[in-house]
């Protein structure tokens, strides 16, 4: 991580220590809240994964690693992992590309910009349940407007089965997922774009750089930090996404869109196996942990290389 306090007055040992105390005091509330609210449930869940627990009573017996053995050997976990990875990569790519693109556009002085910004954020405001219901309606082959419009425009000859066949179902949830969550990227990137000093662009223009190279040489490096965080956060959230996929396709057709979060929920409250659900959850967590550590290490190495350069 970039060393923020690069220029310190010499011989400021006591100041540093006092400052360090202040620093810890400032982060204390965060630690307190998270510690109080999340740490216990988190540890509980990991603990539960070694038991066989009947959800409504939360009672059960110790089974050691049996849950994990069943999970890893069943094949259901691995295929769901692949499905989840496909979904995550697909929807994330769309979210980032469309998000950055839209942020760039909304950064310009376009007509009715406030309204445009408000409308673009709209998908993120909408409750997922309602969003999915509306999209299912739009996708419907009998009375949905989407098929109707495409047929009128001559693009398709007969209604398309958007949600009930593969690969349509996976593509549809990727697109709806991108639609729903890309405003997160827009807001973060837009906020960062606002703080890029105009002088940098001036300098580039004077050097004769066109808009495309200005984007790659000025904008993108400035966005790197925010994008690093945004990509990390969105990856974790997309990986964990439950409501959208469950309500849209239920994991179907067959297991075409059955991602890991669906299995966790199903185990916990459908099959009433809280222990097994916790085991799946912990496995998911380990996968994400590996990704997160690798990603952060690479991001650190990159930014260190940059600041060294």
């Amino acid at each position, binding site marked *: 991580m970039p060393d923020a306090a690069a220029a310190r007055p010499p011989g400021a040992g006591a100041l540093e220590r006092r400052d360090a105390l202040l620093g*810890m005091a400032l982060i204390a509330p965060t630690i307190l809240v998270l510690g109080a609210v999340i740490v216990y449930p988190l540890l509980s869940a990991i603990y539960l994964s070694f038991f066989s627990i009947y959800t409504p009573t939360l009672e059960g017996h110790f089974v050691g690693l049996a849950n994990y053995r069943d999970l890893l050997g069943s094949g259901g976990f691995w295929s769901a992992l692949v499905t989840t990875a496909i979904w995550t990569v697909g929807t994330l790519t769309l979210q980032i590309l469309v998000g950055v693109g839209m942020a760039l556009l909304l950064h310009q*002085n376009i007509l009715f910009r406030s309204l445009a910004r408000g*409308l673009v954020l709209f998908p993120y405001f*909408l409750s997922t349940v309602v969003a999915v219901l509306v999209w299912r309606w739009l996708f419907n082959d009998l009375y949905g407007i989407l098929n109707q419009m495409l047929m009128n425009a001559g693009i398709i000859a007969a209604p398309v089965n958007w949600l009930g066949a593969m690969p349509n179902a996976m593509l549809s949830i990727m697109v709806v997922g991108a639609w729903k969550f890309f405003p997160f990227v827009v807001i973060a990137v*837009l906020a960062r774009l606002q703080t890029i000093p105009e002088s940098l662009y001036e300098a580039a223009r004077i050097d004769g750089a066109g808009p495309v190279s200005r984007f790659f040489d000025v904008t993108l490096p400035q966005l790197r930090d925010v994008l690093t965080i945004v990509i990390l956060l969105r990856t974790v959230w997309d990986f964990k996404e439950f409501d959208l996929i469950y309500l849209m396709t239920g994991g179907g057709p067959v297991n075409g869109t059955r991602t890991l979060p669906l299995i966790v929920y199903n185990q916990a409250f459908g099959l009433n196996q809280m222990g097994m659900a916790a085991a799946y959850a912990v496995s998911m967590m380990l996968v994400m942990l590996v990704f*997160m550590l690798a990603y952060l290490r690479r991001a650190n190495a990159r930014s260190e290389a940059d600041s060294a350069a």
Partner: protein
Amino acid sequence: MTTRRPNLLASLIAWPLVLIIAFPLAWMLLTSIKPAAELFTRTPQWLPRSITFEHYTRVLTETPFLQYFGNSMILAISTTVLVILVSVLGAYSLVRFRYRGRETLAALVLFTYLLPSVVLISPLYLMLVKVGLANTLASLVAAYMSFALPYALWLLRSFMAGIPEDLESAAMVDGASRMGAFVDVVLPQALPGIISTALFTFILAWNEYLYALVLVNSDEARPLTTGVMNMLISAFNIEWSLLMAASVMMSIPLVILFAFFQRYLTSSFGAGGVKG
């Protein structure tokens, strides 16, 4: 951007995209003013043949919608204010101070995201019951704070890291205290980051469903998401017209609110006083 001339090319590219993105909202709006008999015509129609506001009236008068709306507002605002307070201080700490375990703390904070929230519900609920907060908005605030703090922290940290230290050092040389410099210099420049974090947190608290379903059961404390869903959606039937009206009412105020606030994301707040 300092130019006042509207960028027509960008407008021409942007607006069609915006309209495509907002097209489901248009559909929701138009459906909510259609009489029930026009909902599912064989060839779907965009425009209603006759306009009615009966669905809006029904939702407002026959359901506790306004009570739920009020609850959601309180919930979202409280969560946002608390999260901003805590995360702004925390992000500043992570960016400008050095102490042992700083990086580990930051990573650990993010670590809390890695477990799917489904398995956290039961233990969390049990804990809240023990503390006596079951069935209150406060329990939801606590839960949502724990969802929001990690990303708030990291996002704000990234914004603050981009603010050069010169002005703070200058202010401290002028005699301001550490925290004084923070409030007077850092905060204004981090405002775009703060506003965007506030936005995300508000939306999270406004739209969250599963925890609201499980942690709160009484209408006094029930927020909009579960209130509206439980009433209008059941296994065998969905009250489509009422649902569309309720959803529009749930969303449009937010759109207007944020169209207003997005002003504060502009650079005149962000980069004032910093040269290169």
